[in-house]
């Protein structure tokens, strides 16, 4: 550790001989060392920092070392503080340790012990600094897909997300299907203090009611037929992190009661189990339904609604921020150009005009699907109007002579085609549940190509 010119040590002690001997001692080791005789001097010296290690006398006239430790930490939270104490004040040293001091030494200190202590403190400091650097690097790596959109409404959404991220507040994200609610949830998570723990998404609408309880709370072995092994639930997996409850408006009244209980108590039991399991999670939920109407109609519990709707973020549909379409289009072209290794780099102006005018009932997700499909068909270097799905190029007027069933059939077929027969996505866009969609597929005799 000697001759490490980057390491710095601040000695704070009211006794001249202690300051003098320690500064000399550390300077011979090559450390940048300065001394302060009292608290006010030490606080001034913090301006010359940052100091890697601060040796702090517990008993000083005026502000005590313990009080000064708190002030120093306010200035530099990462400072490694070692308390110096006389034998009589070991209790104070213990108190200092409880408040975050790295260690303490009693005067006079064995030089060998002091030497090793400083080396350990510096090593820890360097590891801690390195950890911070790596975390920053990691933050960049785990950032969600970029939120694309420069329109004022989207800028407002991103601003709200980043603001609420710093708190532990429960967030309700509202928006039509395909607007990017999960992306906003992930943005909140990675900008929060919980970012190094998982964000656990649960699509409440996609899990059958009978399995949702097990999915959320886990189950013990043998708790029901087929439960051959113990399984942790999503709430348990989200310990330290965030649970993202998507399509919260679809859960049953029974599940609403259970959810309310676990959100209030942060503890639950696995299905078939007796042990209370504690979990420290943040709740972010999302819905595309009118929950207020559901509360009024009695379909959604009012107490759960207020528990979840603490901070609400509404994502505008794409048709209300058409100025973002070109930006999003370019983003998806770039994304799929790389993924497909295809040199398609731009959108023909006529094709782009069609995209901007289209109402986008499936929002950004639909736009992405359209671009992905067009990228497959397009001849480099640009996407032409012919590469777009047929319905984009047509007027959306409804044929005057068609029956309601015929129109519904056509629309369901169109959406299924557009989503590649992804039932969940298609049901989302049509704003019906999956069972209803299956019924309509059967009713109209639709077949997957």
């Amino acid at each position, binding site marked *: 550790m000697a001759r490490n010119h980057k390491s710095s040590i601040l000695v704070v002690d009211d006794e001249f001989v202690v300051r003098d001997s320690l500064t000399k001692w550390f300077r011979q*080791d090559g450390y940048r060392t300065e001394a302060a005789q009292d608290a006010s001097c030490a606080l001034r010296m913090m301006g010359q920092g940052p100091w890697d290690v601060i040796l702090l006398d517990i008993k000083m006239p005026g502000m005590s070392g313990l009080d000064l430790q708190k002030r120093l930490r306010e200035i530099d939270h990462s400072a490694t503080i070692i308390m110096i104490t006389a034998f009589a004040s070991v209790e104070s040293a213990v108190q200092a340790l409880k408040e975050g001091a790295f260690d303490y030494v009693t005067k006079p200190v064995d*030089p060998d012990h002091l030497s090793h202590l400083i080396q350990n403190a510096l090593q820890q400091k360097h590891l801690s600094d390195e950890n911070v650097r790596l975390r920053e690097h990691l933050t960049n790596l785990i950032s969600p897909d970029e939120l694309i959109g420069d329109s004022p409404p989207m800028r407002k959404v991103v601003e709200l997300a980043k603001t609420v991220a710093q708190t532990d507040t429960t967030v309700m994200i509202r928006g039509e299907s395909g607007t990017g609610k999960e992306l906003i949830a992930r943005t909140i998570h990675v900008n929060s203090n919980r970012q190094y723990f998982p964000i656990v998404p649960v699509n409440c609408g996609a899990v059958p009611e009978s399995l949702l309880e097990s999915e959320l709370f886990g189950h013990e072995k043998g708790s029901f037929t087929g439960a051959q092994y113990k399984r942790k639930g999503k709430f348990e997996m989200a310990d330290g992190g965030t649970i993202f409850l998507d399509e919260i408006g679809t859960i049953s009244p029974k599940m609403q009661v259970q959810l309310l209980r676990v959100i209030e108590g942060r503890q639950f039991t696995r299905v078939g189990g007796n042990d209370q399991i504690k979990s420290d999670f943040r709740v972010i939920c999302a819905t595309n339904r009118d929950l207020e109407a559901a509360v009024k109609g009695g379909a959604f519990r009012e107490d759960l609604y207020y528990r979840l709707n603490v901070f609400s973020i509404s994502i505008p549909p794409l048709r209300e921020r058409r100025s973002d379409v070109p930006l999003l289009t370019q983003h998806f072209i770039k994304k799929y150009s790389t993924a497909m290794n295809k040199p398609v780099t731009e959108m023909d102006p006529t094709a782009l005009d069609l995209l901007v005018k289209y109402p986008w009932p499936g929002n950004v997700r639909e736009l992405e699907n359209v671009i992905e499909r067009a990228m497959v068909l397009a001849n480099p270097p640009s996407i032409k109007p012919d590469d777009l799905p047929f319905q984009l190029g047509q007027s959306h007027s409804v044929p005057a002579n068609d029956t309601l069933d015929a129109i519904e059939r056509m629309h369901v077929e169109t959406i299924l085609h557009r989503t590649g027969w992804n039932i969940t996505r298609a049901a989302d866009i049509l704003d019906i549940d999956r069972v209803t969609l299956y019924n309509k597929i059967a009713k109209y005799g639709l077949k997957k190509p």
Partner: protein
Amino acid sequence: MVVPIAPAPLEHLGGVLKHLGERFRLPVRLVMDHGIDPAPAYDASRNQYYSSFLLAALLATFSHHQGKILAITGNDLFVPVLTYVFGEAQLDGAVALVSSFRLDERFYGMPENKMLFEQRLIKEAVHELGHTFGLIHCRRFDCVMHSSTAVEEIDVKSENFCPECEGQLQSLALAKV
């Protein structure tokens, strides 16, 4: 200049002087009659001598001396915040002090070993004088400027400067000239 302060390990001073002359390539002389009394540096509660006090006395006594001054004593030394020190020096200054008290194997309950004792004394003398030339502690375990807070560490290192410290010593010494 080497200044023994009573009780000094006189029988080993010859070897120390010879080595210092070779190591620093400078004339070395022994000054016995200096009148420095260690008694005021004595701390009865610790039964030790305050090394910084002795360094101050050396500076006052030899204020007109142009070269480096190394005092050697058999007293146990301390600085207030530490339980003991093997020696103390002014970094890039004029004076240094070495204690032989804890270099003696008998201090650790072992049989006397005069050769080892002298080797340790030489190493500490070179080390503290190295500080007066502006050298700081070296990371190389075998360099004489490596920090030693236990006698075993003194035994591990050599009597010599590593090439890096040797080079620094030359450039620092030349800069003074």
